[in-house]
Structure formats: structure tokens, C-alpha cells
């Protein structure tokens, strides 16, 4: 099939990005950041609390962890819901041992269905981050009712400062709608190791570097690596960032957890070992996303 000559025209071939969401910026050339207590690492643990409905449609695609068999897929439905009943409490205990408060990225459906779980997180002073309605309501270009979806999820969760879109899927308007709804920071984009300013219409959000790779489900279920390998990747990530912080200023070690993955009895020990490893090092500041962003913003 012939290609139009327009295919060799490049109207956005210019300095910086090919869109207006954020400025081009080189990580090692930025002003070094100093974390509270002169910490080298801000340790940001994010626990995703997800609900995959039994009648999942998978539009416009099925995210990692989705239901797979013909209806009714009790097997995957319950295996994911395990995270909200059992796994999350194991993760909570492991974190609490080191006095770590996490950020929980919560599907609004989880908050509606299990209000006692949300109370528990609040008691522990975890941060709640918006994580859409559920794992079958992805945000995507051409969808209808996105504005209502955002305001519903945001109001159910009680005006969260942070947001992670389900499956990190966005429409072209998602950041604008989030900013209008009062969200301050967005965790979907995986292009940086530090926060940066993100334009949303006439408002400014901040992008926060929630890791896409250092993620239990991505490593265990996406890559099919085992728990020992997960531990190696967690400690290797930490090692390099900790070293880099000595010369480049404070860094963020972001770990994304899914209680339906890491919360299994044979896996939770891996998280415990990783946390013990991190916390043995001097200069590690466990913090929530909002705390890290606030510390960063004060220095800009």
C-alpha cells in the first residue's frame, strides 16, 4: 500500500517534546534535592488495592491481573480479591515493623465495598491515592462519561491528592479532568526518577515517579520471574539509587505492590527481607507520595 508524502513531514520536529504536557528536562543536570534529615533515599511504598469485577469487559484492553476464562471466572476474581481480604494485612504488618506508612492506590469500588479496610488504612495514617473506579473502568481516548467517572472516584475517596489511573491508561483529557477535580499529582507516566511539573489545561499538576518496573506484579506475573529474582531487583534498584544520591542529591525508591501478588504466604517474606535491607541503610526516609512531593516542591 502506498504511503502518502505527508508521512515524511514532521510538524512537531522541534526542540523538546512532541506534546505540551511537560518540558524536556535532563535528570542529572537538575539541582540536587535534599530530603528531610539529609536522607539519601525517600522510600515510597505504594500498595494498589484493586477490584476486578466478575463481568469484566476489558475495554479497551485487559490490564495485568485481569479475568481470563469464560464467565464466571471465579478463579481469577477470587485470587485478585484475596489481596483485599488477606494479602493487604500481611503487607501492612511487614511495613509496620519498620514504621513505614504507605500510599494506597485505591479503586473507588474497594472503598465502597470494604469501608472497614479504608478505616484501617486511615488509622495507620496511610495516604489514599485515587485509582479510578475499578479495574474494568479504564480511561481511554473516545470513552464516554470520563468527567463523571473522575469526579465519582475522587469524591468516594475523599479528595485524594494523588492519582494513579487503572493500568496507567489515560485519554488525552485525563490529566485535565483530574486537575479540575482537585488532584495534585499524577503517577501514570514512567519517564523520570523524580517529580516534575505537568501541565493540565491552565492548571499545573505534578508527575510523581511511581515505578512501573519495580512492581511485584510486573516482575512476578508480567516477567514470570521468581521471588528471589524480585528481591535481587529490589535491592539492585536500591543500591544504584543510594549510590547516585551521594553525588546527585536525594533520590526516590518507589516500590509498587499488589497484595494479590506479594501478599501470598510464600511471597511476603521477600517483601520483609527487602524492607529490612533498605532500612538497614542510614539515610532512608520512608514517606508517602504527598510527603515526598511537598519536600521536593519546597526546594524548587
Amino acid at each position: 500500500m502506498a504511503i502518502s508524502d505527508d508521512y515524511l513531514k514532521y510538524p512537531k520536529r522541534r526542540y523538546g517534546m512532541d506534546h505540551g504536557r511537560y518540558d524536556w528536562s535532563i535528570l542529572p543536570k537538575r539541582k540536587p534535592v535534599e530530603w528531610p534529615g539529609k536522607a539519601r533515599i525517600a522510600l515510597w511504598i505504594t500498595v494498589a488495592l484493586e477490584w476486578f469485577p466478575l463481568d469484566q469487559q476489558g475495554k479497551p484492553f485487559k490490564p495485568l491481573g485481569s479475568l481470563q476464562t469464560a464467565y464466571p471466572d471465579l478463579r481469577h476474581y477470587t485470587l485478585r480479591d484475596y489481596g483485599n481480604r488477606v494479602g493487604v494485612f500481611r503487607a501492612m504488618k511487614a511495613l509496620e515493623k519498620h514504621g513505614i506508612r504507605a500510599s494506597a492506590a485505591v479503586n473507588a469500588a474497594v472503598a465502597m465495598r470494604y469501608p472497614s479496610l479504608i478505616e484501617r488504612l486511615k488509622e495507620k495514617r496511610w495516604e489514599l491515592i485515587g485509582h479510578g473506579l475499578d479495574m474494568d473502568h479504564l480511561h481511554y481516548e473516545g470513552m464516554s462519561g470520563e468527567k463523571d467517572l473522575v469526579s465519582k472516584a475522587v469524591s468516594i475517596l475523599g479528595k485524594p491528592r494523588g492519582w494513579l489511573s487503572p493500568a496507567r491508561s489515560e485519554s488525552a483529557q485525563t490529566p485535565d479532568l483530574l486537575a479540575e477535580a482537585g488532584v495534585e499529582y499524577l503517577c501514570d507516566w514512567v519517564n523520570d526518577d523524580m517529580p516534575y511539573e505537568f501541565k493540565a489545561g491552565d492548571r499545573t499538576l505534578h508527575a510523581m515517579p511511581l515505578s512501573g518496573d519495580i512492581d511485584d506484579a510486573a516482575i512476578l506475573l508480567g516477567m514470570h520471574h521468581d521471588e528471589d529474582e524480585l528481591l535481587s531487583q529490589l535491592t539492585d534498584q536500591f543500591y544504584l539509587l543510594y549510590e547516585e544520591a551521594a553525588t546527585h542529591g536525594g533520590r526516590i525508591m518507589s516500590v509498587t505492590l499488589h497484595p494479590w501478588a506479594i501478599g501470598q504466604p510464600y511471597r511476603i517474606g521477600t517483601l520483609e527481607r527487602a524492607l529490612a535491607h533498605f532500612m538497614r541503610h542510614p539515610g532512608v526516609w520512608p514517606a508517602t507520595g504527598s510527603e515526598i512531593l511537598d519536600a521536593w516542591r519546597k526546594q524548587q
Partner: protein
Amino acid sequence: MKRDPGLYDYLPYDGRPKITWPDGARVAFWVAPNIEFYELDPPKNPARTAWARPVPDVLNYSYRDYGNRAGFWRMAEAMDRCGVRGSVSLNVAVCEHHPEVVAACVERGWELYSHGTYNTRYTFGMSEAQERELIQDSIDTIKRVSGQKLDGWLAPALTYTERTLDLVAEMGLTYVCDLFHDDQPGPVKVRKGRLASIPYSLEMNDAIAFNVSSVTPRHYGEIIRRQFDRLYEEGKESGTVMCIPLHPYLIGQPYRLKAFEDALAYIAGHDRVWLATGREIARHFLDNHFDSFVKASIPVGDL
């Protein structure tokens, strides 16, 4: 459509003319970082969709953007520490979008060669005039930003037409990285000019290892060592080539870098390894071995 690309004759590994590298090296070793720009919303090519998810594919776009913002700088410093230069497989639009990245390569004395204009503009379906325009863009842009003559080609996102290699040779390039049939350089049969195929290796490519084969970071370091050890051993008989193609968005991730750097230091620590660029390997092969390889090649029999 052809059943055989017609780009090379048969030349068995066993019993070929001997390749000798400078200073008695056994392996010509080169590292090829792919420095790329993927457009958020590229025009459609009927033969291939740019993104796995609907546009805007925020996750996959931003993952690649990480390479230029963060990963490249870490990768380049690791290569500096090992004394290894890069031969950059460059989407030339990076020269406009991120000139600092390109300048950092040029300052280090790295070679720039072409990987098309954007990694989201595919060659499939282009006319000869369009493809010439694409190649000329690379020749001109690389000359302008670095003063270097463009010598090498790795097709953008590995997309081709039947005439890609003919055009590349006619327009004065000396080598291509798109053929994976050998561990030594070889002649490419083109309608005009002399063109060398330089081994580039999809097996050692971090994108294939991590994104396709789900290799662990530490095992990636291990397979690099194994690949090198075997090619170093075989290089006693006749010089071999080892390439590590990289993507800063992958190898520049904190959890992956050290295992790679250790493997790179292992290779650079050997005596009889030639730390070369693609252009240098191609030049040496064209000047010293190309003709004997052509002569020894055996035409392929008909079915």
C-alpha cells in the same frame, strides 16, 4: 514478493578466508545504543501500528522517554568507566528534540549512524523517492550536528522495502546492521557499490532480552559474558564480531545497570579485544577482507 531476499550467497562458517583484526585482536567488540524518539501520536502506516495500546499510550510512550531524560546519562557514564565508545543507532529527529543527548555522544567521540528519523515512522510501503528522502535526511542531519559522514544503517524499527539496502549503498553508506545471518561481517549483494553487513545481534539486544524474552538483569550480564567467551575463543582461528545493542530506557534503569556494567568491564578487561565502532569494523573489513569473502561465497542453488 521474493522467497529469498537475494542479499547474500552461502558462505559456511567452517573454512572461510581468515579475518585478522588490528593488533591481533580476536574479537571486534562494539556497543550500539539506540537513541530514539517515539511520537505520542504518529501518522498511521498501514503495515504497522505504533503503539500496543490506544493513543495516547501513556505507559509505553513515557517508558521510552525515560531513556532520554534519565537512562542515557547513566548508561553513558557506565560506558565511560569501562572505556567503551558507542556507535549510536540514532533516530535523527533526536537532534532537534534533544540536542543535548546527541552533543553528549559527539563530545565522547562516539559514532553516529542512522536508525531513521523517528522510531514511529516505518519504511514499509515507501516509494523509492520517499525512501531516498528518508536516507538523505539522516545523511544531512548527522553531518550538520556532528560533521560525521553517515556510514551505517539500522532500519527504523527494523522496517524495510525490497530496495532498502540497494539505496543505502548507492547513497554512500558502508555498512548495515539489519542482517542477522552471521557472527562475522560479510558482503551484501546490492545493485551498486560495496556494502558490508556488520553483526549487530538481536540475541544480545537488551530490548529483545528484556521486553521479549523476559531475561532477568543479572542473567543478561551472564549471557553477555557467555557470548563473549565463545566468540573470543573462536576468534583465535578467525576474527569475530560481538555487538551489544542497547536502549537507554531499558539498560539505564537503576536495577539493570550494574549487572550490565560488570559484564562490560569483563569484556573490556581482555587483552585481545578490539573496542571498535561500527564504522571502524566496516572499514577494516571492506579494505582487507570483503573481496576474499565475495570470492569464496557460493551461489545458492535453485529449488
